[in-house]
């Protein structure tokens, strides 16, 4: 995947693409958003969620792998669980805000035409159960489903990390087997209410996380060069280009009906199951990732652009920016439904949201740097990678 990483150096591409995925997630989470025609899902079978989970696995292995090497298994595990705790608290925080928002909108939905079908009364009739279920990650309202996945994946990560150190190929093989069995047997995790399942099935999505982690762990070792062989890069580029053409033709078909959707009858069915991360989505994402790594090197000039830097900063503070993005998409949707003013308003809401995400990230960046810098002391501060 990546070339050798100099000690303490940071692969800015990870931050950039994670930042980009957060912005895409924000845009895609506003229902019926015009700008979602311009996110990654228009040119691939996957969407930003795959990018986010893959990079999360990659950086987790990179950061905690170094920690494992330097400080041992116990500390690395403790650090992982500290992160899990942060994610958990963030999720509960989002849930509380979400519940407040929903309680208000539910009153509006009590109009007769929806009450019958939605059964929304159930939701707040048993708040004590809903809250406990939320604390157990068992109750996942729409759009609050990716953090629980991340929490579970990271919570199970310590043994994976230890295995990576001893037998680098074992985790990905076990993980692939679990993925295959999950797809073949239809395994799923249930949530509250009883007949719901996790929107992101952890048994399937763990495969992508472990693939990311295996590649990330390989990058820990600076002497270990894990380059993608040229033939594989070429194959990936061909697949990614093919997928892009097909996917774009579908997008164009929806915009302009006479445009033919290529292979839609054969392929579309196999791309929609995001819950179980269908093989086509996985292949599409991996081909895209390998192509990007091949064409965008670590020292690519575009990583220095101002606009790029802004997105990189978002990626560096991914947890906060992610949470903010989720709240902003709910807020953005609310504004758009209440004060719809056409495409102009829609673009303005999107841009304002992105600006707020970047602004918040810049604030965190400043705060982090300012807190670390001793008073009156000048000179560079050694950069420590943060996950």
């Amino acid at each position, binding site marked *: 995947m990546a070339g050798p990483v100099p000690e303490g150096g940071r692969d800015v591409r990870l931050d950039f693409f994670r930042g980009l995925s957060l912005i895409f997630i924000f845009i895609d989470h506003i229902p019926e958003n*015009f700008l979602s025609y311009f996110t990654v899902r228009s040119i691939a079978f996957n969407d930003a969620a795959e990018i986010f989970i893959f990079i999360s696995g990659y950086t987790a292995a990179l950061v905690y792998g170094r920690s494992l090497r330097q400080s041992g298994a116990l500390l690395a595990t403790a650090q992982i669980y500290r992160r899990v705790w942060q994610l958990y608290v963030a999720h509960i925080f989002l849930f509380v805000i979400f519940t407040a928002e929903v309680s208000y*909108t539910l009153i509006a939905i009590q*109009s007769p035409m929806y009450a019958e*079908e939605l059964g929304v009364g159930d939701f707040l009739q048993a708040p004590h159960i809903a809250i406990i279920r939320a604390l157990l990650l068992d109750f996942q309202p729409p759009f609050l489903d990716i953090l629980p996945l991340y929490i579970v994946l990271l919570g199970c990560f310590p043994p994976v990390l230890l295995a990576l150190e001893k037998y680098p190929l074992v985790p990905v093989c076990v993980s692939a087997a679990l993925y295959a069995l999950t797809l073949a047997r239809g395994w799923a995790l249930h949530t509250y209410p009883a007949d719901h399942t996790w929107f992101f099935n952890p048994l399937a999505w763990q495969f992508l996380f472990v693939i990311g982690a295996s590649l990330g762990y390989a990058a820990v070792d600076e002497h270990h060069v894990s380059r993608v062989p040229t033939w594989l890069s070429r194959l990936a580029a061909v697949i990614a280009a093919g997928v892009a053409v097909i996917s774009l033709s579908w997008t164009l078909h929806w*915009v302009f009906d006479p445009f033919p959707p290529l292979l*839609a009858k054969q392929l579309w069915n196999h791309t929609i199951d995001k819950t179980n991360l269908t093989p086509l989505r996985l292949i599409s994402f991996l081909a895209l990732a390998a192509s990007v790594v091949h064409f965008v090197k670590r020292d690519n000039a575009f990583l220095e652009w101002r606009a790029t830097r802004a997105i990189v900063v978002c990626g560096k503070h991914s947890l906060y920016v992610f949470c903010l993005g989720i709240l902003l998409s709910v807020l953005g*949707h609310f504004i758009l*439904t209440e004060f719809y003013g056409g495409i102009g308003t829609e673009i303005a809401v999107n841009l304002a949201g992105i600006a707020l995400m970047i602004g918040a990230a810049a604030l965190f960046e400043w705060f982090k740097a300012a807190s670390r810098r001793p008073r009156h002391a000048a000179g560079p501060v050694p950069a420590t990678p943060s996950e």
Partner: protein
Amino acid sequence: MMRRVLLLLPGLAFVASLASGGEREHGAAPGRDCGVPRELVEDEPRLPGLAERLHAKQPVVITVIGGGSTTGAAAGGPANAYPHWLEAALRRRHPQAQITVINLGIARQTTEDMVQRFAAEIYPSRPNLVIWETGTVDAVRGTDIDDFTAALESGIAALREHNSEVMLVDMQYNSGTASVINFEPYLDALHQVADLHDVYLFRRFDIMRYWSAEGMFDFVDVSKENRAALAAEVYECLGENLAEAVDFAAQ
């Protein structure tokens, strides 16, 4: 994937209607203005079998299968449901044809549940057209999207095998639901399946959103005592527009 951009944006649909001279459908019956831009009802594909029967003035049987909104419960029952208004509007438009609309709505059924009912409840009456309103309960329950799609596809194929033409009806629109229920993937899947299998899809969601955006209906601030009346009006308007759509497709 996303649905067509024109209808993604009520604003755009409105602009399109201005561009086409502000033309709106005007059904004769409803007491209020609930016309929509032509693009929202005049769509492909057509219903040649139904067209033939109407043209030959042969009896026509239309079966509507769907959920709670098809039963008309919110407005007091089937007599106020949109299938009833569809029948009334079609009979008015085709006085010589003998048109029967059968309402098979049952609340809280998934797409799969409805498919299970086809054999016992739809096939025996040999309908010329089956109007299938679905998707809501699947979205509420979070049915696996590929199970939902598979059920839709098998249902469409089965109805066609039994010589019925098929029309789909998508979900109702409400600005508040999006934060509680993740409708979008199901709405997208419904539209994709309709497109892939050449099924006419009645855009109830876009139509109701158009009414909401244009201020023709207010679905949010409704007092308790006015709710049934609102539902009745909406169903009447939907029935009228559905008749317009059926008529257009059966030309």
